[in-house]
């Protein structure tokens, strides 16, 4: 499978994966999270497990099971770790631990390396029998609600190390903390190359005209993604450049506000025929891919963001990109080189106009963005980092340099 990435991912990543594969051959690597499908973690694991298996490492993926009460609690934990004040009662914490205990008895947790994703299965570490255990935190934990953080920290510090996506998402826990950015898979349905015919088919089906520049934002209908701000930016641009705006997103089952925001956005767009609001069914990966490829400029004008992998997805398609300077977006966008970072509606409008009026600059920045993603945010780099970390923690040595030749 690794050979499929030759010529796409950087050679150094493939070489190191092969060399680490030789060193870790026959060992077992278990990932545990709380959902088999839906969400970025599941999306990446679906692709990463076979990739690591192809190196003759026994990679497995287990999913914990819980009831509605459990998920209600973990949703609150998730929100609280991102700063929302949430009331979690003693009873709820007890149930959270009981569900984890029941999963620990049911699941095969024996492996040489175990990567536990996010807070839902964090207490499993108390049932560790062997191997190196790592906790992978995908959320911004820089400013958590203190009561909830204290409860979760008690589990996290039992791990050999914690892994965060961005340095600014970390919170001091008394264990080693690593930074490993998430990634996209260039061969997945959402990112693979599409033919002109495939792109045209999607455009026709979704009713997107191809006669004018297309501005695109792909994201959930969520106020933090600022869809109204995007419409306002488009309205400013429209005074100078004829263009159309596409706002595309899927409904999130865990977000009751989604429908309300969508209604707000529809009503704000009113009867402007050049604003296309698309509610895509879940797993519309090929449609998202085609929309990104047909776009002239892609935006992610968030006012609050996690890592924001839609940024790398758009940049991978070589598109001129504009993002809000929040969350993980600045890590993916070197301002003025691989895209623009903005802080306001006016900033977004100004940068859109710059791109539309300077196609050569737009092309150059789009290409730089694609190269940056190729070097930094592909799945081969993330797999390489996980194996490197496992290897480093297994072969602890003096000094920070591991010579593998």
């Amino acid at each position: 499978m690794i050979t499929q990435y030759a010529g796409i991912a950087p050679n150094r990543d493939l070489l190191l994966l092969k060399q680490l594969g030789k060193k870790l051959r026959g060992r077992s690597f278990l990932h545990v999270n709380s959902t088999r499908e839906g969400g970025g973690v599941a999306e990446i694991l679906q692709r990463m497990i076979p990739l690591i298996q192809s190196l003759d490492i026994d990679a497995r993926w287990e999913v914990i099971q819980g009831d509605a009460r459990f998920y209600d609690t973990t949703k609150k934990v998730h929100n609280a770790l991102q700063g929302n004040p949430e009331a979690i009662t003693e009873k709820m914490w007890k149930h959270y631990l009981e569900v984890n205990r029941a999963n620990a008895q049911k699941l095969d947790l024996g492996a040489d390396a175990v990567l536990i994703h996010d807070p839902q299965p964090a207490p499993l570490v108390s049932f560790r029998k062997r191997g190196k255990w790592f906790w992978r935190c995908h959320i911004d934990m820089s400013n958590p609600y203190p009561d909830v953080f204290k409860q979760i920290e008690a589990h996290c510090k039992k791990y050999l190390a914690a892994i965060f996506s961005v340095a600014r998402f970390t919170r001091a826990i008394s264990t080693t903390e690593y930074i490993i950015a998430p990634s996209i898979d260039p061969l997945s349905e959402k990112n693979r190359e599409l033919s002109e015919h495939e792109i045209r088919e999607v455009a026709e089906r979704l009713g997107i005209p191809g006669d004018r520049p297309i501005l695109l934002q792909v994201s959930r209908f969520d106020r933090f993604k600022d869809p109204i701000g995007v419409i306002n930016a488009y309205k400013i641009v429209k005074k100078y450049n004829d263009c159309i705006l596409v706002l595309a997103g899927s409904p999130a089952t865990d977000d009751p506000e989604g429908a309300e925001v969508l209604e707000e956005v529809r009503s704000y767009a009113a009867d402007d025929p050049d604003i296309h609001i698309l509610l895509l069914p879940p797993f519309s990966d090929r449609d998202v891919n085609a929309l990104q490829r047909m776009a002239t400029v892609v935006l992610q004008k968030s006012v609050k963001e996690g890592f924001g992998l839609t940024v790398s997805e758009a940049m991978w398609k070589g598109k001129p990109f504009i993002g809000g300077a929040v969350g993980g977006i600045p890590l993916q966008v070197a301002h003025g080189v691989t895209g623009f970072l903005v802080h306001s509606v006016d900033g977004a409008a100004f940068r859109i106009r710059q791109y539309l009026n300077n196609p050569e600059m737009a092309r150059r920045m789009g290409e730089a963005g694609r190269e940056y993603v190729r070097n930094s945010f592909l799945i081969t780099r993330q797999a390489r980092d996980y194996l490197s970390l496992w290897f480093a923690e297994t072969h602890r040595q003096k000094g920070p340099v591991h010579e593998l030749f």
Partner: protein
Amino acid sequence: MAQRARKKPDKSFIFRDVVTVVKTTGLKASTLDELREGIAAVSEESIFHHTYQYFAKGHVQEYTNDFAQWAAESLEERALAEYLANIDSFSFKSTDALRKELLRVVDDYREKFPAPRPVLPGAEFYFSEAVSFVFAAGVRAKNLAEFLTAIKFIDASSIYYHYYEARVRLRKEQDDFSKWIAEVVKNQELADCVRSIDPFMHNLEGVRTHLAEMLEDGLRKEMEIIE
């Protein structure tokens, strides 16, 4: 008794690659004073990461180390950024000596200028370290022509390892490339040319381009017959 022929040592240039996994130190700074405290307190590995390893990123940013970049972008103290960017990190005999120079520049600035405001939330400086993995790139060059071909296609991280990091490893203001050209190819003039590329003024692709031009020129001179 016939003497067994002694195997000649392999003097090929063996290309290596390096990748890093970043570790946090738990220290962060939101003011210039906190940056100073951090520089004084962090490990040598952290100073190394924010200065020498800065070039491994591909050098897409404006300044020449993370401290200067943060001073300009987050602290908005452009003059401080200029002073920090002008520090020649490769001229120091140790990472600790480089740390002292960074502190001297910051202290000097604090004496001359009013204290800057704290950075906006989310723009703090996070002191990090890195664990490095050095491995064979699977490419070797037996002569200058093969070396030139390799330079054109090896990964940029290999150029970082041999051209930037080597200067710290060898501590002789020398890099792996010019050392091999001088000692194995025995072309001191070309070695001096290669060594003269200013590592602060180019990104890795820029260094690659200059190297290829110099090697091509050196090879052409070797091939020319002047009667």
